[in-house]
């Protein structure tokens, strides 16, 4: 196994018995629960020509990308770095017989793995929630055919456009040893997003990129997707390079 894979597997060991791992399940489950309760309480049906699956998942993806994803990311990424900050762990990882950048890359990969897992669970839970809604609601009938392609595409776009915020949280969590800074960044980032929508270039605000990558109009969806994905990857590369040369 390569050094990098070994280091990633070690990061996953560290996640044991930790809130972070449960958040992977709890965060998407909470959004689905919310949406399912809303729909179960609808008095009337929703019109038969609309694609109910896409309608159902639209609300989920909005709540996810605007609120749950930034909070989840802020918390989970911060925890990954807290393991080292609070234990003097950098002194140990710094003497590992591996290239310095790999330790940081492994942390970012494990953050990415957790985000990917919860994004996948969000999709799985969406289907489950839809079935439950269709089963228990007197009027709403979810179509038999699930639009997998469209659902996957939307989830994938949101996931990719989230990378910039993920990268920002990684950097902040690395540089500030106090847990409150990355958590504050997540809350502040989300809060400002509510106002940034009205600004001309607000759609490029990092915390709005995931949502705009599927709902943006006039090509803004493409720009948002590209900014989030490419911006995130570039920022992660820069961070890995800069911080590993700074540290050793």
């Amino acid at each position, binding site marked *: 196994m390569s050094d990098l894979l*070994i*280091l990633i*597997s*070690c990061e996953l*060991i*560290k996640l*044991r*018995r*930790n809130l972070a791992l449960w958040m992977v399940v709890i965060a998407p489950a909470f959004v689905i629960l919310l949406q399912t309760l809303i729909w179960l309480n609808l008095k009337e049906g929703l019109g038969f020509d609309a694609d109910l699956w896409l309608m159902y998942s639209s609300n989920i993806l909005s709540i996810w990308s605007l609120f749950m994803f930034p909070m989840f990311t802020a918390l989970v990424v911060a925890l990954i770095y807290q*393991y080292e900050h609070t*234990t*003097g*762990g*950098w*002194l*140990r990882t*710094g*003497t*590992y*017989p*591996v*290239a310095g950048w790999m330790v940081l890359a492994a942390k970012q990969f494990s953050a990415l793995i957790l985000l990917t897992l919860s994004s996948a669970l969000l999709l799985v839970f969406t289907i489950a929630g839809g079935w439950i809604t269709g089963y228990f609601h007197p009027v709403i009938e979810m179509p038999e055919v699930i639009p997998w392609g469209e659902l996957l595409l939307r989830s994938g776009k949101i996931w990719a456009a989230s990378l910039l915020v993920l990268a920002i949280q990684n950097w902040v969590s690395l540089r500030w040893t106090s847990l409150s800074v990355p958590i504050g960044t997540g809350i502040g980032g989300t809060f400002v997003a509510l106002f940034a929508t009205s600004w001309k270039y607000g759609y490029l605000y990092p915390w709005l990129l995931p949502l705009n990558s599927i709902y943006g109009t006039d090509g803004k969806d493409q720009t948002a997707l590209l900014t989030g994905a490419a911006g995130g990857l570039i920022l992660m590369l820069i961070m890995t390079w800069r911080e590993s040369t700074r540290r*050793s």
Partner: protein
Amino acid sequence: MITLDHVSFSYGKTTVVRDAGFHVPDRSIFGFAGPNGAGKTTTLKLILGLLKPDSGEILIRNRNLAGHRKEILSKTGALIETPSLYPHLTAGENLEIARRVYRVEKFRPDQVLSQTGILAAKNKKVREFSLGMKQRLGIALALLHSPELLILDEPINGLDPGGILEFREFLKNLVNREGITVLISSHILSELELVISHAGIISDGEIRFHGTMEELRGKSLSRLFFDVSDPEKALSLISPVADCRLDGGRIEIREGNRDLTARLIHLLSAAGYDIYQAVQEQPNLESVFHELTRKEVRHV
């Protein structure tokens, strides 16, 4: 094993290690002593590559860490400041992380746990460990990959007297059995005195002494006391030869050794004095240590 040559390091504008140079021979137990804040931890971090020196060169096995990082670090075990342990994981899980990173065989964790006497606590979370157990696990982690060089930063801190005794025995056995080189720091030299073969003394970022323990003991300036008849007159006889004074009816010579004692006995008895007693104070390492680490001392 380790050679430092004109190494300097500053935190911002504060120079913490100044032109440091010393050599840790193969298979030695090198005690690195100095008061708190002297720069011990910083020096050890420099050796391990956790910090980069502003100037100077550090060689481990005649190699530069920058060019041979993987090779050097895979044969080095270290415990810097407090043991870096993940408290929510068990001892076994903490070791499993290191086992993967150093590509060590599966049986080794149990081996080092029993070597350090905490095998029974393998599946216990580190959060529930006492300070002494954490120190032991820290040492187990440092030994896991059978290093040739072991660097321990104040490992005795927080151990009770029984633990210190046990630790010394452990260290001796380790070096005898496995022939590794140990660099161990402490702010109390006398705690190390019984196990180390070599010493380096740092104060205020400067290396004030480095060499064998014999050389260090040779530096000790022990006092001589002479109990003689008519001490006042005897004093005037001795004073051209040695730095001396009268102390409660005895003659005290500040800096003495065996040769000087013999010379003075000859001198006094030839002049007809009765010598009732001649005492040489035991060389005291702690006083040498204090002497060497005094702030005013610049060059030794």
